[in-house]
């Protein structure tokens, strides 16, 4: 029977693949963004925003990129190595790379020294306003010192004097980067052995910059550079841009890697008012793909509207953001006084574990993915696809093995009513003794202008009520006007936040390092959980245990498998103490003429939107065809 099923599946796949093969590929791509995600700067060094980098990653080539499986892939560099186990990294450039203008006219050769010029720009306080400076400052020898030097000099000598600095002099003296234009090598000297450093080379903080361009347009001119004046070295140039209307990327005529990279003739990014508007454009044939909002998806799926699209519904791949329920350990009431009831409750491990085991989030996940809610389930803190062991195992598998949880896509595995009831009973007993009153009020904040968020919060509220009981906890949904950070986080008004984190480089430390105790660089510890202000000894001990495990894992730099195993233990410790509760991934549904499995699949950094090597079809992919694509991808 199994053989027969396998045969049928294989035949279906072959037929599907044949159908795809018979369809022509798109030569030009029409895609979209909503108007709230318009690009704000063309200066790739001067941006940390995804809306900018999603476009700019197509216009510039960095040393490395990613392939469709998330592996590092050579790009401007033809090879890279570390001669000393990760403290020094040497990248060797391809020959024949050039800088060109928007018309494709060659302006200069791409040289190894362009990477030094780029790094000097990033680290120069007067030039780049500290954008993208933090990662090089943490990792590269002398980078922090050079940054401080430029900052001090700005104050004493004025900005113009600091803007005049180049890679010669103080930068050369202080910063651990050696370039050899003849040999085409760039050598980075790091403050510590960092085995994941090559993944940092996919990020814009280590992108090249031509000194000749700066000579031509000036420092201020480069900071405010436009698509018409800048030099490109990537797969596409911009041939048209109208803010909030559209931008057209045309394949670079003088691209060094033309022979090895499949590109569209043009990629037109249309700015649309809303996803609903994009859907109308897709129906009119003006777009080649569209992500569906829940109302449209359910209408198509239930065949109550546009039923002809139902055979073409395909599930998108997860985005890079891993969502967590971040608990707040030092919360205030609206009058500014500490919310002792909540602070005592959340410090109790039994209380936290009752939430961890007691919430069946399936209906909540259905708000993102109504058809297959469990596609969005997330039991780990670190996102999928960030790091892999030597045998290709995803790091999060190690974490789930530690936790004893798996994604079977049929039930919400973490939910355990029996355990939750035990923890609830224990929490009530312990907390009542401490004077905590029940139900414990939990304040959850959403944007007041979002009806979608309000509907989702209602679902979450129902889950809390149904799973944990109104006598135990009460979820109060409250709203903020325009800024969660200013109106909620700063005054510490929320009991928890549901927030997504996407990595910048390929190492679990990029996730777990945000939660360590007593660490000024740990973002979530300082800005969300406020753990450093907590006073409960057991809670602090749990955080300290986790932090010690992270520090120990960070120290392992010569054996990546051992490093990941150690991080997995740390992450499991964090989750087992329910210090934060893993929540969801974003997996939407769409109509598309693009094989999602051919795209760059990078769960960190900025390479995911490169329009290269995409497989497409002039006809939209059917559900079966995309499933065949997925099967073929898994078999690769």
């Amino acid at each position: 029977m199994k053989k027969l099923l396998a045969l049928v599946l294989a035949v279906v796949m072959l037929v599907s693949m044949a159908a795809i093969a018979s369809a022509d590929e798109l030569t030009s791509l029409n895609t979209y963004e909503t108007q709230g995600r318009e690009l704000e700067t063309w200066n790739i060094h001067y941006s940390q925003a995804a809306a900018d980098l999603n476009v700019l990653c197509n216009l510039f080539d960095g040393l490395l990129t990613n392939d469709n499986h998330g592996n590092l892939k050579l790009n401007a560099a033809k090879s890279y190595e570390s001669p000393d186990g990760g403290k020094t990294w040497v990248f060797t450039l391809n020959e024949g790379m050039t800088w060109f203008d928007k018309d494709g006219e060659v302006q200069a050769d791409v040289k190894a020294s362009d990477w030094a010029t780029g790094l000097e720009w990033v680290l120069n306080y007067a030039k780049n306003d500290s954008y993208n400076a933090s990662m090089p400052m943490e990792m590269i020898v002398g980078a922090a010192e050079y940054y401080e030097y430029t900052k001090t000099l700005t104050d004493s000598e004025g900005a113009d004097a600091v803007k005049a600095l180049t890679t010669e002099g103080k930068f050369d003296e202080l910063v651990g980067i050696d370039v050899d234009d003849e040999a085409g090598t760039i050598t980075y000297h790091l403050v510590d052995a960092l085995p994941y450093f090559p993944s940092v080379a996919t990020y814009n903080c280590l992108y090249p910059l031509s000194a000749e361009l700066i000579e031509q347009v000036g420092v201020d001119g480069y900071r405010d550079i436009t698509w018409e004046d800048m030099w490109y070295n990537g797969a596409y140039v911009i041939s048209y841009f109208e803010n909030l209307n559209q931008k057209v990327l045309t394949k670079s005529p003088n691209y060094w890697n033309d022979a090895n990279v499949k590109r569209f003739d043009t990629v037109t990014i249309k700015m649309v008012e809303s996803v609903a508007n994009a859907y109308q454009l897709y129906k009119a044939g003006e777009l080649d793909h569209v992500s569906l909002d829940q109302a449209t998806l359910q209408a198509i799926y239930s065949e109550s509207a546009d039923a002809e699209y139902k055979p073409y519904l395909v599930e998108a791949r997860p985005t890079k953001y891993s969502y967590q329920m971040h608990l707040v350990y030092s919360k205030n009431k609206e009058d500014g006084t500490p919310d002792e009831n909540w602070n005592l409750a959340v410090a109790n491990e039994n209380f936290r574990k009752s939430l961890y085991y007691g919430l069946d989030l399936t209906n909540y996940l259905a708000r993102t993915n109504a058809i297959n809610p469990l596609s969005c389930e997330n039991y780990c803190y670190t996102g999928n696809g960030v790091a892999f062991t030597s045998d290709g195992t995803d790091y999060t598998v190690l974490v789930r093995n530690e936790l004893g949880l798996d994604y079977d896509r049929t039930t919400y595995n973490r939910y355990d009513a029996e355990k939750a009831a035990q923890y609830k009973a224990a929490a009530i007993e312990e907390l009542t003794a401490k004077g905590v009153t029940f139900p414990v009020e939990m304040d959850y904040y959403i944007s007041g202008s979002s009806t979608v968020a309000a509907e989702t919060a209602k679902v979450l509220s129902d889950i809390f009520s149904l799973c944990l009981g109104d006598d135990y906890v009460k979820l109060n949904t409250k709203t903020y006007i325009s800024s969660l950070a200013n109106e909620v986080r700063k005054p510490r008004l929320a009991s928890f936040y549901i927030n997504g984190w996407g990595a910048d480089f390929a190492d679990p430390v990029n996730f777990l390092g945000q939660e360590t105790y007593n660490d000024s660089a740990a973002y979530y510890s300082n800005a969300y959980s406020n753990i450093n202000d907590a006073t409960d000894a057991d809670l602090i001990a749990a955080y300290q245990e986790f932090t010690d495990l992270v520090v120990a894992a960070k120290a392992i730099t010569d054996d990546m498998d051992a490093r990941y195993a150690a991080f997995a233990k740390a992450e499991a410790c964090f989750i087992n103490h329910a210090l934060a509760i893993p929540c969801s991934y974003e997996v939407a549904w769409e109509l598309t003429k693009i094989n999602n499995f051919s795209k760059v699949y990078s769960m960190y950094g900025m390479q995911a939107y490169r329009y290269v090597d995409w497989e497409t079809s002039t006809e939209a992919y059917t559900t079966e065809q995309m499933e065949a694509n997925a099967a073929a991808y898994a078999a690769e």
Partner: protein
Amino acid sequence: MVKYILKRLLQSLITVLLVLSVVFFLLRMMPSDYFFTEDELIKFTEEQKYAKLERLGLMEICKTCGGKGMVEDKACPNCREGDAASGTGYRNRSVFAQLGDFFYQMVEMRVFNAKGKEVKTATPVALPAYLSQKAGGTDPFEGTLKEGYSVRACFNLGKSIRLEKGQYVTDVIAQKMSVSMEIGLIALAISLVLGVVLGVLQARYKDGVFDHIGTGYTVVVNAVPRLVIYTVIMIAGSSLFALPMRYDATAANPDLTKVLPIVCLSMASTAGYMLWTRRYMVDELNKDYIRLAKLKGLSTRKVMFRHVLKNAFVPLAQYLPASVLLTVGGSLLVETFFSVPGMGPELTKAISRYDLNLVQGIVLLYATMGIMGVFLGDLLMTLIDPRIKLTGKGDVR
């Protein structure tokens, strides 16, 4: 009259400056974290935040500690927050100093290289020297300007800090304004002609079928939410007439992509002109001089157009200059819906992203246009109806 005009212009200038100053101060009363995106708040270090605020001119490096936060191994008393172990290294800048800079930069000069690319700005202090010395053939920048460089004075309102980062506000406004004005003026012309003609016909056939249809149209246009109407027009225009669903200057026929936005824009104002033309004409039709004209045997056509419309149009005419001038502002809804790259969404987007300079620039433009519109409307009324006097005793407007 000249005295009156000069007086009104002076009053207008003062009003605009007051509006601008109030907006300037209000924008700077916002907490500093509003100047960062949620993304930036997550990823930026404190140092980055201060650096950005410094560049925006909202903060400055602390003079006491030189940005180090420490003075002789102690927290700098000038930039320390609460009981922190060290100062931040930055201090808030005086808002009056910021306002001074804002007006000062209006006369700043832009320096261009030989290829016509802007390379720097120069302070206005150098302007007189530049102008006089350029005439004498010497370089007022003492060799800092290279051969082939040129200097141009400009009305500098600063650069956009978010929406179009680094672009001059005046350039952004000029570019957007032209797009909005183009479709706005066409829509205004259509709605004016259609609205007035249909309003006249409604008045002429008052309580007839045509009047009821016209009233029904006006009610529907005003009662049904605009986005619903736009969606219907977009889908109908696309499916029935194969019209493009969004503005696209790169399309094979760009003018065709403007049709739906223009239809949507003119739809509401047509209803407005119909409504008011009908109302004023019906008012006039009941007056004695019209009855007398009819009794004297004037044809209905002559009565309607030569007498009734002429008088009924006076109150409408007052708002015409403002309508024309305010086309520069575009339409928030229509331009957002059809992705028209005009001025419509610019102010709300600039406010929501705290793009200070752009907000100030747009407020300046809108205030100027609004005030000038009222002023020109008053002048136009005196031209159309000589009985109206703007000066003199008793009936001064």
